[in-house]
């Protein structure tokens, strides 16, 4: 997975170094350092949770839970991956745990339409095409949506996404195919209607 960033190599290295320092301080109990980490990563974490759950309130809960879990488990974080990647995995786990609590199985479409009506989030922007696409993603079946979000939007490999979602790689690929197919048809239908 690639880290967000548009600066030079030097700038990226400086940011990584700063982040390591923040992680070390937070490990030793600094909530100020952890708040800085939160500010740096909340957009990506919330974006992931929002797209995966298709529900704003649930996405907020998952985002909070993810950061609380990160705080609890930070002492065992050994910088083998970037903090953002680690945080991303915790966020996916938070979404899946939330789904288990709600007995929501992948493929269960209950409440998706209702949730999709509440999307897009105000933070997404006001580009009409983007809004259409966000709404179409939110209306996808949960299993297909989660794979599309992880692989299609956040750049995970099928292997990574399958491991995170507890799926076979083949299932992951077929879910992505299904998601793209459904999205394409829905967007085409909306285009022809407008």
């Amino acid at each position, binding site marked *: 997975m690639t880290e967000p960033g548009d600066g030079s190599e030097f700038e990226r290295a400086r940011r990584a170094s700063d982040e390591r320092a923040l992680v070390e301080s937070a490990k030793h109990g600094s909530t100020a350092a952890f708040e800085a980490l939160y500010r740096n990563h909340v*957009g990506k974490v919330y*974006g992931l949770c929002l797209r995966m759950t298709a529900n704003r309130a649930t996405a907020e809960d998952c985002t*909070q839970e993810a950061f609380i879990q990160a705080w609890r488990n930070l*002492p065992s974080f050994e910088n083998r991956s970037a903090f953002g990647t680690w945080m991303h995995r915790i966020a996916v786990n938070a979404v899946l745990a939330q789904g288990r609590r709600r007995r929501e199985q992948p493929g269960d479409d209950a409440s998706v339409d209702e949730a999709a009506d509440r999307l897009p989030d105000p933070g997404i922007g006001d580009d009409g095409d983007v809004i259409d696409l966000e709404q179409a993603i939110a209306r996808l079946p949960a299993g297909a949506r989660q794979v599309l979000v992880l692989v*299609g939007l956040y750049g995970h490999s099928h292997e990574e996404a399958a491991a995170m979602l507890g799926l076979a790689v083949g299932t992951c690929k077929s879910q992505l195919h299904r998601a793209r197919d459904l999205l*394409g048809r829905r*967007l085409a239908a909306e285009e022809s209607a407008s």
Partner: protein
Amino acid sequence: MNSDRTDPATRLEDALSRLPQCVEPPRDLWPAIEARLEPRATIARRRWLWPAAAAAVLLIGASSLITATLLRRDEVAAVRRADAPAGVAATVAAFGPGQALGPSYLAARQELARSLEARIGRLPPEGRRQLEKNLAELRRASAEINAALELRPGDPLLEELLLNVYQDELAVLASVNQLTGGSGAGATTDPTRMQL
């Protein structure tokens, strides 16, 4: 959507790539998060509770099994002492004053000693290999789950799996106990059921 492009799949990919990865939450979530952050010392104390509980379960189970096995060995030892040429007094003492041990009982005890010894020492190589294999697999599984827990810290599913592996390990130990003394010829030559 960009209607300049004719290929729907390409247009979809383009549109997906334009979606921002970052979406700011509609409200600041930090105050609610900060209110739930526990001091590091509290977390460190609680972090030890779960593995300590699992270890305690394992320890209690294992020590019970060891005790049971040792008790069975004591039975064997008592029988062996009784088998000794000068052990008549000792056997009388073992079964109460004034009790005389007839030849049939002595023979039965010898049989029991043989069968217990055989059961302990004659665990089928296959069974022994299987038990060793099972234990090795369980230990490998617990190592892998621990490694996965490092990647998915606090994952309740993984923690549950780890606890299950510990319990399975206990079950294997219990089966060792059963195989070495829980059933078989010993049941028919149990000294407590013997008619003296």
